C-alpha cells in the first residue's frame, strides 16, 4: 500500500479518535488498529512500535486517571478522566500502527521538491521512536550474545550509552548519504517509485469516509460521542458509526502482496 494512503489512513483514524470519548468506539478503533497492524506490519524491528505505543498509551491513561485523585474524587470525575486518557491512548495506538505498517522515509519521497526539507525533518521526528525501539532491541541482542544478560533498572545505564551513540552515528550516516545523492541540488531521480494502486485508493477513500461520518456526527452532536459522566451513564452507540470505524479495517483485509508483485 502506498505510503500516502497510510498517511491518509492514520490522519483519518486520528480524527475519528479525536471526536469521541465513548469507550465502545475507542475500543473498536483499538481492535481495528490491532487487526490492521497484525495483517500489514512490516516484518522487522519497527513492528515492535505497536506494542511500545500500546504500553505508552496504557501508561498515559493511568497517569491521566491518577491525576483525578489530587482533586475531587467521585465516580463521574474518575470516569471522565479515564475516558480522556483512553482517547489519548487510542491516538497513540493509531500512531503506533502507522509506524509499524509504513516506512517513514517512504512518506518523505511524496513531498513536493520544495517541501522536501521540512518533510524530511518531520519524517526523522516521526521515526525517532520506532528507530530507538529497534536500536534497543539490537543493543540488547548484542549484549546477550556477549553473555551480558542484565535486567531491570541496572541494565538501563548499560543500554543508554550504546543507543545514544548509535543514534548519533545513524544521523551522520544519513546526512552523508543524502549529501552523496545530491540532496538539495535539484535533480533527483526516483528509484522504484511507489505505485498508487486500487488497494491504496480504497484504503484512503474508506478512511476518509469514516472520518467524514464522525465529523458529521460530532458537528450534529449525535451518536453519543461523549457519553454523559454527570450523571454517569452506560454509553450508547450508533451502529452506523461502528460501521464507519469498520471502514478503517479495509487496509487490513486487502490481500497480502505476493513476493515480487508491486504493492
Amino acid at each position, binding site marked *: 500500500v502506498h505510503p500516502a494512503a497510510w498517511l491518509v489512513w492514520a490522519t483519518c483514524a486520528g480524527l475519528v479518535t479525536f471526536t469521541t470519548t465513548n469507550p465502545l468506539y475507542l475500543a473498536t478503533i483499538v481492535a*481495528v488498529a490491532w487487526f490492521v497492524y497484525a495483517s500489514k506490519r512490516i516484518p522487522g524491528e519497527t513492528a515492535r512500535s505497536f506494542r511500545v505505543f500500546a504500553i505508552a498509551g496504557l501508561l498515559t491513561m493511568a497517569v491521566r486517571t491518577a491525576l483525578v485523585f489530587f482533586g475531587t474524587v467521585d465516580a463521574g470525575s474518575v470516569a471522565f478522566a479515564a475516558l480522556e486518557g483512553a482517547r489519548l491512548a487510542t491516538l497513540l495506538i493509531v500512531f503506533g500502527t502507522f509506524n509499524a505498517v509504513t516506512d517513514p522515509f517512504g512518506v518523505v519521497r511524496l513531498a513536493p521538491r520544495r517541501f522536501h526539507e521540512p518533510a524530511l525533518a518531520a519524517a526523522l521526528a516521526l521515526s525517532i521512536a520506532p528507530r530507538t525501539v529497534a536500536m534497543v532491541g539490537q543493543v540488547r541482542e548484542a549484549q546477550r550474545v556477549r553473555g551480558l544478560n542484565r535486567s531491570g533498572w541496572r541494565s538501563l545505564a548499560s543500554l543508554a550509552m550504546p543507543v545514544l551513540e548509535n543514534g548519533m552515528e545513524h544521523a551522520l550516516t544519513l546526512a552523508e548519504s543524502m549529501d552523496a545523492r545530491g540532496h538539495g541540488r535539484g535533480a533527483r531521480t526516483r528509484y522504484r517509485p511507489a505505485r498508487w494502486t486500487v488497494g491504496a485508493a480504497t484504503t484512503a477513500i474508506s478512511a476518509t469516509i469514516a472520518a467524514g461520518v464522525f465529523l458529521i456526527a460530532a458537528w450534529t452532536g449525535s451518536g453519543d460521542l461523549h457519553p*454523559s459522566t454527570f450523571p454517569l451513564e452506560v454509553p450508547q452507540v450508533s451502529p*452506523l458509526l461502528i460501521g464507519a470505524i469498520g471502514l478503517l479495517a479495509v487496509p487490513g483485509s486487502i490481500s497480502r502482496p505476493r513476493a515480487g508483485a508491486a504493492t
Partner: protein
Amino acid sequence: MLMPTRRLRTLAFGLILVAPTLGPATSGLTRACAASASGAPHAALVVDTGSQTLSYCVELDGESVSGIHLIQLAGAQFGLQYRLGFGGAAVCQLEDVGVDGSDCFGAYPDFWGYWHGNGSGGWSWAGSGAASASIGDGGMDAWTWGQGDSGATHPAPPALAFDDVCDISSPPPTPGPGGGSGSGGSNPPGGGGNTGPGGGGGAPGAINASTGTTGSTGNAAAEGTPQGSQTGSPRSDRSGGPDRDRDVDPLSPSPTASDDSVAALAAGVADDPDGGPPWAVMFALIAIAAFGAGGWFMRRRSDGIKGG
C-alpha cells in the same frame, strides 16, 4: 498504469453512489437522538451569584452537552445572561455578576466556581473544565460566585435536588419576591425557607447542613446577606410558568419548526429514548471481538508464512 486508473475511477464512482445514502443516514440518526421526542433529556443548572440563586430546568439538544453549552441553552430557553471568555471555554459573567471583559479571572480572587451535583442535593467541585465536561439527562451543574480555589473553601451551591429544579409533579413554587433584580431582600433571613415551597427543599439551615464540609462558609454567606430565602427560588421569576410547560411540551423554544416535524418522523424510528438501539452495543462488542480475533488470526498466519 492504465488499468489501475480505470479501476480507480469505477471505485470512485461506486463510492460517489454510496455517499449520498450515508448522508441522510447520519442526519436521520441525529434527529432521532435529538428528538427522542416525548422524553427529551433535561439537566438542571443552578446559578448562585451570592445574592440570589437561580435554577433552570434546561432541555438538552443532544444526549449530552458540555457545561458551557448548558449555559448557552439556558440563555436561549430562559434568557440567562452570560458572557464567556478564553475562547468560549470559561465563564466570565452570569446574570451580570462577574467580569466584563474576556479575562474571566480579572476579578480574582472572586470567580465563578463550577460544581457537579449528585442529583439529591450534594455538590462536588468540578475537576475539569466546563467546556469538556459532559452533562446528560438528569445531570446537575452549578456555578457559584465567590472566593476559594477548592470545593472546601468556595461557597457551595444550595442543596437542591434534581427534582427540586426539574419536577413536573410538584406544585409550582410561589413566585420569588423582587424578580431577577431583587435579591429576596424583602424576606427576613431564615424566614424565607419556611414560606418556600415544599419542592424548594426546606429551611436554609438544613441546606447548609447537608452540604457537609462547606457548611461553615455556606452559613457565613447565607447570613451575611439576607438571602436566607434562596429556597424561595427566584427560579420562578423567569421559569415558574414556562418551565413547567417546557417539561411537557416538546415544541419549546429553540428548535426550528422543521426540526419538530422531523422529530415526529424520527420518533417512529427510534422509540428508545436513550439514543441508539439497545442491540447496537451488542453489535459494537461483536465488532470489537471480531477485529481482535481477526488480528490474532492474521498474526498467526503471517508467522506461519515467515516460518515456512
